[in-house]
């Protein structure tokens, strides 16, 4: 080992930071090189100077005041600790499991509540607009075709009620009668003329004019008007004997 290489190693050698072989080589060189040996002595002196004076003269008062100030800070910190902070601090395995179970329970509950709420709402809508729910409606080819068309509409808007249908639903039989051209004498309620006239009312669609289905209502003529909303159908019955004016009008909302 030459002196140039040794100069690089002396700072580590004096602190005992050289590994086995390098340390032995450095010791060997220093034992026969007075110049490098002198350099090592100077390094050791500076190191000792640093160590001897590196401990600051901090007095007892300094440490007492430091301790007091620290404890005051700690007291303040303890008071500021929130409930959440305590939970985080005391976090452990069982606590994690319980918290996870609670979260799953609440999320699951909310999801079920939402699911059944939507399902119930759908059922109500379908029941309200379903053709089979009308006990006195008879299945005819016309009805079937109409219901197929209606079901397509229902799929598109099951529970939606448009503004127009709301208006039609709010109409009372009397309201119709007042503006109805059937008030005029001689009008044939059982003919398609009635339906074509009613069709002129926006949102109303004549469906059928047919005899009443059962015995008790054999003498009545049943008239249906399908509004633009599939869930609303206007039905009324007209006595065959007295064809002057419709005696009863019912507003059926399915």
């Amino acid at each position, binding site marked *: 080992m030459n002196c140039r290489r040794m100069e690089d190693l002396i700072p580590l050698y004096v602190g005992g930071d050289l590994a086995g072989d390098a340390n032995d080589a450095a010791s060997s060189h220093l034992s026969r090189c007075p110049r490098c040996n002198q350099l090592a002595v100077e390094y050791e002196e500076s190191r000792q100077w640093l160590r001897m004076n*590196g401990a600051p003269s*901090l007095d007892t008062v300094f440490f007492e005041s430091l301790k007091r100030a*620290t404890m005051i*800070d700690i007291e303040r*910190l303890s008071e500021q600790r929130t409930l959440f902070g305590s939970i985080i601090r005391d976090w452990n395995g069982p606590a994690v499991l319980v918290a996870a179970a609670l979260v799953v329970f609440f999320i699951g509950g909310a999801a079920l509540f939402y699911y059944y709420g939507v399902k119930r709402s759908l059922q109500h809508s379908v029941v309200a607009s379903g053709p089979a729910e009308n006990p006195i409606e008879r299945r005819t080819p016309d009805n079937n075709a109409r219901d197929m068309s209606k079901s397509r509409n229902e799929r598109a808007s099951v529970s939606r009620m448009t503004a127009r249908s709301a208006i039609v639903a709010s109409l009372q039989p009397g309201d119709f009668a007042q503006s109805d051209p059937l008030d005029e004498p001689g009008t044939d309620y059982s003919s398609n003329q009635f339906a074509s006239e009613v069709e002129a009312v926006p949102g109303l669609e004549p469906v059928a004019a047919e005899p009443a289905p059962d015995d008790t209502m054999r003498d009545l003529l049943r008239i249906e008007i399908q509004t633009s909303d599939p869930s609303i159908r206007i039905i009324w019955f007209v006595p065959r004997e007295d064809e002057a004016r419709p005696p009863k009008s019912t507003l059926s909302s399915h």
Partner: protein
Amino acid sequence: MTGEVADIALMTDGPRLDQRSDEWRRSSLTATIARAQAGDKAAFEEIIAYYQRRVAWTAWRMLGNEDDARDAAQETSLRAYKYLHRFDQQRDFSGWLYRVVVNVCRDIARKRPSGRIFASLEEEMELGHTDALAASDDVEAAAIASQENRIVADALGTLSRKEREAIVLRDLEGLSTDEVARMLGTSQATVRSQISSARVKIKRYHDRLLRRRRQR
């Protein structure tokens, strides 16, 4: 950490700990830390009393003045209190605390407007601080010691932050190269390199100081 408790005991205020065996101190310290982790403030106060001198000295060596050392020691205790629940008792508490001190000192040094915490030797000589020391041979020993402290702080100030951290932990705190590497989060080779370059700079500072004194 080899001889850790014995070293610490010598630095603590009370003679009580010095008179007992290392084993007793070790088990007592472990129990005290466990109590502090459970929220016992009195136990934590005991720990502070046990370590505060060492913490303050390290901070002073890192930062170079008493005020910053006080702030750093206080902040270190506070952080230790905050995060004590995270400390794994299987590990070395002293090493954990050293890491906290080093981080606190870094934060404090970073907040300084100049970014540098010490003056260089040249600046010190221009300011006449070393002359004052040379001229104070006849003053009281305590004053001389205090001034030597100041000079050492200045000498440490000529080092880069990483060199200073390495030399303080290795030469002044007496930790092994391996421990220093772990605390600073670096390799032993890097620490050796930093220590070597720090010793060269300290020697250069010391040589110039001695030359200055001889000239007077």
